């Protein structure tokens, strides 16, 4: 089996069976990373370009390792968009890369919609590794895999996503993904950072942290960009942390078996206290491990599965 389309651009475009397919494929690929020789020949001869217009350590490394464990050749390109001089357009870059005959381009960009543009320009597969505040599908898939691993199933669970929803692509992809698999999703944050119409994506919205955590099976804390303070999305880190930071006192009001997720990198002591981040409920490092498996599955489904 493989994906219907050539690309993975967002979770919004997938249906539950697509998501299940990625998760089950990732589950079977997870053991490759436990072997002594961590490599399968499945994607030998395939070329994967990681085109990152935004700095990223974790995601880029995860995609690179995933490609290499599948025996694909991975090439990393980092482009700075902060440069004052306007560089080459996305279209020109896309056409130039395509001329080198890659099989897949993994793209991260600070502007929403760029992976869709790219997918229209090139014939090879495109994987969205995060675009602006739009989507981050591989992150949502690894989050679902992590929760499924611990809870057995996603359907019927209650997930609360807490923090800066407005600027979060992780929040959007997870709202789509978890609701498609039958979970109930609540988003919580200060009203300045909960965007209008978010309920139309299938979730409930609240500004009360207690409301969000009291019945949750899974709590996903989002990274707060400290620069948002300058734009008055919140008055101070101190007050933000007091209201929406997850510490042990707040955790005591949650379910005993609640799971804590965070897409990383974490601001310790801001959105999540060190005790909670390093505590028994935290799955932060499981997420990172599962990230490699999910990305191996994505490459396999887009590039490899057809041959079998």
């Amino acid at each position, binding site marked *: 089996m493989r994906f219907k389309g050539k690309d993975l651009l967002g979770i919004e475009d997938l249906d539950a069976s697509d998501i299940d397919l990625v998760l089950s494929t990732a589950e079977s690929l997870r053991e490759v990373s436990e072997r002594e020789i961590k490599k399968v020949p499945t994607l030998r001869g395939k070329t994967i370009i990681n085109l990152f217009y935004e700095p990223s350590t974790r995601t880029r490394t995860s995609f690179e390792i995933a490609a290499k464990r599948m025996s694909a050749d991975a090439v990393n390109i980092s482009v700075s968009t902060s440069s004052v001089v306007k560089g080459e*357009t996305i279209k020109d870059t896309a056409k130039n890369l395509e001329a080198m005959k890659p099989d897949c381009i993994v793209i991260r960009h600070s502007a929403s919609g760029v992976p869709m543009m790219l997918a229209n320009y090139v014939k090879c597969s495109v994987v969205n590794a995060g*675009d602006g*505040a739009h989507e981050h599908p591989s992150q949502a898939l690894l989050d679902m895999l992590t929760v499924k691993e611990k809870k057995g199933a996603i359907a019927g669970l209650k997930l609360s996503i807490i923090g800066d929803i407005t600027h979060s692509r992780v929040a*959007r992809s997870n709202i789509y993904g978890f609701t498609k698999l039958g979970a109930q999703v609540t988003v919580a944050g200060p009203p300045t950072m909960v965007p209008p*119409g978010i309920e139309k994506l299938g979730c409930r919205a609240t500004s009360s942290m207690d409301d969000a955590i009291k019945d949750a099976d899974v709590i996903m804390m989002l990274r707060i960009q400290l620069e948002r303070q300058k734009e008055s999305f919140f008055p101070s880190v101190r007050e933000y942390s007091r209201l929406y930071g997850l510490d042990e006192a707040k955790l005591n009001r949650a379910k005993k078996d609640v799971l804590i997720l965070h897409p990383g990198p974490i601001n310790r002591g801001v959105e999540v206290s060190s005790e909670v981040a390093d505590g028994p409920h935290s799955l932060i490092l499981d997420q990172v491990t599962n990230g490699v498996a999910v990305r191996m599955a994505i490459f396999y489904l887009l590039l490899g599965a057809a041959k079998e």
Partner: protein
Amino acid sequence: MNRLIIKGGRFLDPVAGIDGIFNIYVMGGRVASFKPAYADTTEITPGPGVEVIDAKGLLVTPGLIDVHAHLREPGFEYKETIRTGTLAAAAGGFTSILCMANTRPVNDNESVTRYIRKKAEEEGVVNVFPVGAVSVGQNGERLTEMFELKSAGCVAVSDDGMPIVDGGLMRRALEYSKICDLPVISHAEDPTLAGSGAMNEGEVSTRLGLKGIPGAAEESVVARDIALARLTGGRLHIAHVSTRGSVELIRMAKEEGLKVTAEATPHHLTLTDEAVLKYSTNAKMNPPLRSSGDVEALRKGLKDGTIDCVATDHAPQSIMEKDIEFDRAANGVVGIETAFSLIYGLVAEGLLTLNEAVSAMTIEPARAMGLDKGTLRVGSAADIAIIDLAKGWTVDPAKLRSKSKNTPFAGMTLKGVVEKTIVGGKTVYSRE
């Protein structure tokens, strides 16, 4: 003198209250007479110096008037020129257009105005009325020499494209412009509320992860400018109204009797922010496409006269400015060739009468800007549009006369085809 006879068309002139089958006789570029076709026994035959247009089955109206176009010349000739922009206007049935001041250099002094008029006379095919800037360089600091702008041919002033942030400057503009009776066209936008928004703020922007521009960014400045019109008694025209709240504010201002007029664009009257869903940069403009509730309010406003007229905000942008990331792409859509058909679509839907639609594109824009145009009387310049309402066409960007192709209507089939456009008795557009 050359003669032109437009024979047997359905002549509709809202001002004169005429809607019937007429023969129109044009001599020396001016209307010489109208004769009801059934009673006209003149033998009409073409010959040397006598052109006959058979308009049987076609609509004949006063030439359309657009009070809001960007011709981009001087300075941005790679997007549009006075030549290509007026050819596009003619193809859309327009015979008179106002061109905005945000050229390079800005039309903020009489020499630029004279340059535009000279170019328009030499290379243009429709009547071009320049709009001068409100502030020097559109910098929002110092008033332009409005009296000289008017003397050189400007018919209104506007910093369109740039909001006037300083309420004090807007006040002075509305006061000072009274000397020469120039309307001040307001691009109503509070940039601190619009921020770096790229589209309407709402469910769609949330879904797409794009920064939104709330309706309040427009409405707060519409409210301010109406208060200033009340304070000063100046003539205020609100450009490209896009929200329900703005329509309400303008309705109240008119009930109060203030000198306030307003326009809405065909795209704001027919599209919602859902047109942006695939990150289509051809659906990006300022103000942005709004919600269906806003569209409904604009349509009602146009119907009841709160919105005086349709204006295109024809804003050509090259592919270099459009085929890039959505949030970096330039604002604006071309619209002068699709305007009539889109508004006629509202007639076909039963939302407007044909009389109201023609009125909103002829006499009402003329009145808002104080132009002696928009109706045909004996002696008027023969500015005429001939349109086939029964025919449809599919918008093909490659076939647009405009130099730029940034239309959100590509591929759509519209009703109402402009057959001929006549300016001063001369046919400037004829459908192939």
